């Protein structure tokens, strides 16, 4: 993330301090603590009074994307965020969220609990990027509540993985709701646990989970993905791992659960290594081994 991103952001938190918020007639992004005090109705979404985090409320349609940034730039900072986002009926927005540490050696800890409520007919495209140092730790729990006729496209990207990361993304879908969860994770010297769950509760709902996991330099990745079909619905899991070296491990567990006979849920999962043929090919194009691996990995993560 560069300074342009920080400047353009609508919500900026550095360590524990909120540096920037945004509000106009249509959109509000303030601290979760302030939301708890000001809007009684938000309390049902929080498990306890929040101390940190943002509250995003999109009341009317806006024609610009929203940006949030949560940064650690002081040593041994522990962030405990409770985020809440509410999209009113029929709203269609894009959100870009960044969570990161500014430099190596901060030993930061970032914990985030989030709830995203998509009211009837609304649509959210959310690109959530994480970039950390191997000394940092991250834990997040996000729940997306999709009311009728809503649409979620969530992309979680962890390009510079922290030393330890524990992620859970869960979506609950009502009638005619659709959801795509994509996880793009590149681990180096990292222990990663990721759990993506889609619960198809409503008729004609549909969900897809796509995971692309890269393990290198003594990384361990435990990835679980689950689709639960409880009403007539459709779902698909597509989980692929790529082991770049011998020192890494990937465990991939796709799980399907179906309690409605009219549902159709499917999965595909694989773990592979870098193809020697691809590597040879790119080297005959003038790329050295490192550049060739980097290109193949970037391509693999490009979903």
């Amino acid at each position: 993330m560069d300074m342009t991103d920080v400047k353009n952001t609508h919500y900026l938190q550095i360590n524990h301090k909120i540096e920037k918020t945004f509000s106009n007639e249509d959109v509000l992004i303030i601290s979760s603590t302030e939301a708890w005090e000001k809007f009684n109705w938000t309390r049902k979404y929080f498990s306890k009074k929040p101390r940190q985090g943002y509250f995003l409320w999109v009341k009317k349609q806006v024609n610009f994307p929203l940006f949030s940034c949560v940064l650690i730039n002081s040593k041994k900072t522990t962030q405990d965020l409770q985020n809440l986002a509410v999209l009113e009926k029929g709203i269609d927005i894009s959100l870009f969220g960044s969570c990161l540490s500014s430099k190596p050696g901060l030993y930061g800890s970032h914990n985030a609990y989030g709830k995203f409520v998509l009211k009837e007919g609304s649509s959210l495209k959310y690109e959530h990027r994480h970039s950390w140092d191997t000394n940092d730790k991250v834990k997040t729990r996000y729940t997306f509540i999709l009311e009728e006729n809503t649409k979620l496209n969530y992309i979680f990207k962890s390009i510079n993985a922290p030393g330890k990361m524990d992620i859970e993304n869960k979506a609950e879908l009502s009638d005619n709701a659709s959801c795509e969860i994509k996880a793009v994770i590149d681990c180096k010297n990292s222990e990663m646990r990721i759990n993506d769950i889609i619960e198809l509760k409503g008729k004609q709902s549909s969900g897809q989970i796509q995971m692309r996991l890269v393990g290198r330099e003594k990384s361990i990745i435990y990835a679980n993905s689950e689709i639960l079909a409880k009403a007539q619905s459709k779902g698909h899991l597509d989980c692929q791992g790529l082991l770049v070296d011998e020192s890494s491990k990937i465990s991939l567990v796709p799980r399907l659960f179906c309690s409605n006979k009219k549902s159709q849920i499917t999965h595909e999962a694989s773990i592979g290594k870098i193809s020697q043929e691809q590597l040879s090919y790119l080297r005959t194009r003038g790329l050295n081994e490192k550049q060739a691996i980097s290109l193949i990995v970037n391509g693999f993560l490009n979903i």
Partner: protein
Amino acid sequence: MLLEVQKLKVKVEGKEILKGIDLKIKKGEVLALLGPNASGKSTLAKVLSGDIKYKVSGKILFNGKDITNLLPEKRVKLGIVLSWQNPPAIKGVKLSNLLEKISRKKVNLKEDILDRDVNLNFSGGEKKVSELYQILALNPKLVIFDEIDSGLDLEKLKDVSRIIKKELVDKGVTIIFITHSGEVLKFLKPNVVNVMVGGRIICRQKDFKKVFKTIKRYGYDRCKKYPLFANKS
């Protein structure tokens, strides 16, 4: 001499595939290499490009410099480039992106394959076009074309040959052309034809038409016996 191959032997899983190849090519020459399937032509192409999976004995000299153990990417820097017969797909990497990374020379490619993943679901013809434009972008001194003509219809074959002639042959780039087809050689008019059988070059001739006639009539092995082709160097 631009390229000189001396007593080149290659074993794969204990089996000798190349059994002592000697080859010389001057700068600007077009050399055709013919031979039946599994005669070792593609192995030779890969070995010349520096594929690290092959254990090699003998010598490969380029501009007098010993490159026998040089890495493939360093050979590309010297100007040695291979056009693959069956190039692999690289998922998630657009051809335009790859060209941007490897180009040493600007090429104008207006094909719609630029926006597609490299070789993924490309037709046979599209793969060949993609290979050709990558080659041009690398601004080579020596190109090894491994059956770039296979799978092309006559029209496409003419187009590809025209580009090879205009952009490479006429500009003095040296070519090794591995092929089964006589058609493409009509366009490219090689200076010399080599026939390879069982991991050995069994004859060399300047007149490619005569070689083709013999192969058509009597098969590849006849080249060895036929007096016309006995002038091995």
